[in-house]
């Protein structure tokens, strides 16, 4: 009993460590002066600055667009890859395929970013597409990284679900494509949603791969925040972070609500 009490105390300490910076961030986004060290009164000043910062707003829209497109691309390719890994048994190149799908999960971002950029440049020389670098190349880069995450989530779900229901559908004379569309897809729907969301957040959060694969005129939100941070931290960034925390909280509460309704 004493041991598990020590564990609970430890849990509280680590959660405090995880959440203290976020609390600090939210608090100081309301600071009246541009300091992030000394509290000098409550104010919405930095939210006003944020709302007028056209560079940040443009970058936010660009990032949201890139995140949505790349997550959708990754969902399609990743689902197929996950399906192949979970259902096709052991085909000849399976170990190599599995390793190739999983590699981006752990590969350092600088390696991923550099190699994707060089691939894009070589492609441009060879076939003339993608012409130049910008939002398109960042989208493709993010999609290619996220495929791994989607594939892992989908594969786990398919392996858990087993093949019994699909076989039953086919015994009842459903064509294989019908069995896939009417049985397999609905079964994996939660994994598909989770995979898409994961890909979306990864794209919104990435600075390294985007920096490598982006070109002039296409700065994503993390790239702008990164260059702002290098010049010095202001409550404006904290205000932006607070907005993100608020949006995420609302979204999570919404998802929890939906799940609770679905279970009833």
């Amino acid at each position, binding site marked *: 009993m004493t*041991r*598990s009490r020590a*564990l*609970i105390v*430890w*849990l509280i300490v*680590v*959660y405090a*460590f*995880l*959440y*203290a*910076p*976020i609390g*600090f*961030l939210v608090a*100081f986004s309301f600071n009246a002066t541009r300091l*992030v*060290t*000394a509290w000098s009164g409550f104010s919405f000043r930095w939210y006003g600055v944020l709302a007028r910062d056209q560079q940040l707003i443009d970058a936010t829209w660009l990032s949201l667009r890139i995140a949505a497109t790349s997550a959708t691309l990754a969902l399609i390719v990743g689902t197929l890859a996950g399906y192949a890994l979970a259902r096709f048994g052991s085909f000849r190149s399976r170990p190599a395929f599995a390793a190739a799908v999983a590699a981006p*999960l*752990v*590969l*350092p*971002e*600088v*390696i991923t970013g*550099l*190699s994707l950029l*060089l691939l894009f*440049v*070589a492609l441009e*020389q060879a076939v003339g597409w993608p012409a130049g670098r910008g939002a398109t190349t960042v989208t493709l880069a993010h999609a290619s990284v996220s495929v791994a995450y989607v594939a892992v989530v989908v594969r786990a779900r398919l392996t858990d679900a087993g093949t019994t229901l699909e076989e039953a559908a086919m015994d009842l004379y459903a064509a294989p494509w019908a069995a896939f569309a009417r049985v397999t897809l609905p079964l994996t729907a939660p994994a598909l949603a989770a995979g898409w969301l994961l890909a979306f*957040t990864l794209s*919104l*959060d990435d*600075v*390294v791969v985007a*920096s*490598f694969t982006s070109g002039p005129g296409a700065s994503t939100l*993390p790239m702008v*925040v*990164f260059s702002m*941070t*290098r010049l010095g*931290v202001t409550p404006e*960034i*904290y205000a*932006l*972070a607070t907005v*993100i*925390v608020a949006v*995420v909280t609302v979204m*999570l509460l919404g998802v929890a609500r939906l799940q609770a309704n679905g279970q009833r």
Partner: protein
Amino acid sequence: MVKISLAVSADGIPPYTALLRWTGWVPHLVPSWDSYALVLGDPFYARALLLSLKVAGISTLVCLLMGYPMALAIAQASVRWRNALLLAVMLPFWTGFLMRINAWIGLLQDDGWVNAGLAALGLGAHRLIYTDFAMYLGMVYTYLPFMVLPLYARLTQMDPVLLEAAADLGAPPWRVFLRVTLPLSLPGVWAGVLLVFIPAVGEYVIPELLGGPQAQLVGRVLWEEFFSNRDWPTASALAVVLLMVLLILPAGLWRLTRQATS
């Protein structure tokens, strides 16, 4: 990437020369090993690589020491609490990585709150931001969830009957832990270590924003070669060397532990 690393830096866009040269219809491969000679010969790059391995190693160890009791506590919690606790581990993810690093930059300032806390405890003020301490803190803070999740997954798969059996046979709790829990959770430990260590070796943002100029990790050196020096071949050669190290090192460690246990 391998291709570019064998080319020579040339002016213009893209800044490297062609690897294939055509003489009539016969292609000639013209690799240049200059970039590799530079990366492997200059101790600057070797130092960066060793420093990165050290930083990633220490960060991984701290993550493991912090994350293991945490995963154990979550796995021992009642089912109702588990999901909430697990969600709480992942939640900071959604607030944006750069935002959390930003928060630490504010907290660790010379006149920041961490120093105020230290002063209140009578420990005096310290230089924190742009030091190795800040860098390690950022690393552990960022990568801790990657350690907790695989550990937790493994620990919940464990059959509690085994623990009861060990206890029934008169083993004190610490012995049950050492002889049953720990060995059974080793695959989770390995997964967590790889998930933290490999990306941490190439980390760029954390040493750049929290570490000082002395923290020349390999990710940072690669970034500088690429963006500041526009030396694509050297950056690529460095990336290939890093990749090789990352492929060989875990395999070697795996071998060693296998030998040690058998």
